């Protein structure tokens, strides 16, 4: 039993690291812009499709497709904010949720029309091979991508605490009017934060292609997981996001192994309800 649980936990931590990267995009949008984004999971889903098609149509490996998707998704997010979200950033939460739900419905419909409903997956080309841990073989690509996710999160932490723009981000997340009076362009910071979030969705989408398959309904799974991780972590810490990502990843792999992959969401949902009941500010939340 124990020989089984240790490798499963390790696999859970690996996928959980990518989940942490995924949810940090949402966390930054929620924290900085005060925007409730239900479309994040579908950005991840679309990024997975872009990775898939750059793999098969252009014969690009996953790592190369990131170079393509990140600027693309950052631009899409930036424009989407300027065109639509700018209008509703001060609206009630109901309007924000409704608009982002409209976005995800359009994205999902496009995915159904363009790519069909069948699941698709790729196999990694550059980082091949696997190592065996306690009798379970784990692809090296997964370990590499999990490590890359953690490194990117550390880089973001450096950016948010040490650079001028990062400090502006944190100022806007604390208050909206005072930064404006100090000469920070709050609107620009908001647009940048939304683009940043979608760019993180693009990276994590590319990484997730080596962990799982993609179909148009995957957006639901990712948005639920990402919001549960944000709630579990609370706002304001990267450490919390990483640990919560690991917890969710471990729960998911354990249920998938011992029961069914479809039941995983149910346990994540139960955890979500318990966290809201016991600690609504999250386990590591500052505010």
């Amino acid at each position: 039993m124990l020989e089984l649980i240790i490798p499963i936990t390790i696999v859970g931590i690996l996928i959980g690291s990518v989940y942490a990267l995924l949810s940090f995009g949402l966390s930054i949008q929620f924290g900085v812009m005060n925007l409730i984004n239900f479309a994040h999971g579908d950005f991840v889903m679309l990024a997975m499709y872009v990775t898939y098609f750059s793999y098969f149509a252009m014969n690009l490996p996953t790592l190369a497709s990131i170079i393509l998707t990140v600027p693309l998704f950052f631009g899409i997010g930036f424009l989407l904010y300027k065109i639509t979200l700018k209008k509703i950033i001060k609206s009630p939460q109901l309007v924000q949720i409704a608009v982002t739900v409209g976005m995800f419905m359009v994205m999902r419909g496009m995915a159904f029309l363009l790519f069909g409903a069948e699941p698709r997956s790729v196999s990694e080309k550059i980082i091949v091979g696997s190592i065996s841990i306690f009798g379970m073989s784990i692809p090296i690509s997964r370990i590499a991508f999990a490590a890359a996710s953690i490194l990117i999160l550390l880089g973001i932490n450096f950016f948010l605490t040490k650079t001028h723009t990062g400090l502006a981000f944190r100022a806007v997340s604390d208050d909206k009017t005072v930064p404006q009076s100090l000469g920070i362009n709050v609107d620009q910071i908001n647009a940048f934060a939304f683009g940043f979030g979608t760019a993180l969705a693009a990276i994590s989408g590319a990484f997730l292609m080596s962990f799982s398959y993609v179909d148009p309904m995957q957006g639901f799974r990712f948005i639920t997981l990402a919001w549960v991780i944000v709630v579990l972590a609370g706002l304001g810490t990267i450490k919390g996001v990483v640990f919560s990502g690991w917890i969710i990843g471990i729960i998911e792999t354990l249920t998938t192994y011992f029961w069914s992959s479809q039941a995983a969401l149910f346990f994540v949902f139960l955890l979500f309800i318990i966290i809201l009941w016991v600690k609504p500010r999250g386990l590591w939340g500052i505010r």
Partner: protein
Amino acid sequence: MSKKILFSVLIIALLSLLPIILGLDYYILLATYIIFYAALASSWYIPGGMAGQLDFAAASYLGIGVFISGTLITFWEIPYWVTLPLGGLGAMALAIGLGYFTFRFGLREVFYALASLASVLSLQFLFLLWKDVGGPIPRYIYQKGLTFMRFDSNIYYYYLMLFFMIIALLIGYKISKSKLGYFLRCIRDDEDAAEVLGINTRACKLKALAIYAFLTGLIGTAYVVFVGSYDYTIFDPEISLLIVVVALAGGSRVIYGPFTGALVLVSVRELFRSQLGAIRGLSWIFYGVVLLVIMLLKPSGFVTLFEKVYKKNVGKISRSKKESFSKKNKNNREPSHEKD
């Protein structure tokens, strides 16, 4: 006021005569689907429109009603009319369980929206894996007759759905005029202020949600006898999203908004489907675009457009009346001023 009553009686009379006008059973089937969504959207108005809680759990409550009624009829041959209130109560219990944790004061609306959306997916997987009751294969109701509300003609189901729709509208209207309705609107506009004024926000929201879930459960029991079979796919997030879209597009601030939205948009969808065939992604894009356009341009919904036209015409009449009235007054006054 009497005009409003006259207008609503007229609409209900038209809707109840509709099957006779349509004639063909296939059209009655389509009309039943439209009324089904209109009934769901009308009950959604209670927590969604009045209390401002974005609820995506319509499919959960509907599915609970469907499974309670369906299981009792197929397994133990319990009459439909006995399972009817049980389905409603089951859905209500789930709603209270969900709302109790997510309506805690100080939590944002997003947590209820998220929990309700996740509940649909969780229940879908649970009923897929729970082989004794659900499972992957659809179960059929073979019983016939009035005790099980199973008929060959769709006309009975049309009236059953219409009955539930009118009940939902009446309850919604009653609540909107009651103390609870004022409390709920206060919560929608500013929850902190409502709490400070001494309104028990959690209890009010729970009450609204429980009534809504009860109604949705009832509609679910009607749906299972209407379709005649049930399986786990009733827990479909698409149904929940559809109801939210039609209700918000119609206008969530007035009682006839969700109802009108459902009548118009579901008819348009059925029209598209009959012309183009069922293309899976197309309805997602259609409803997504409708939601985006309405929310960005007119967040109060498209019924406010009709309202504007109505007010313009009525306002003109009343304004001209006022003007003539003030002119009269002027005429009366002016001579007296001149005298002075």
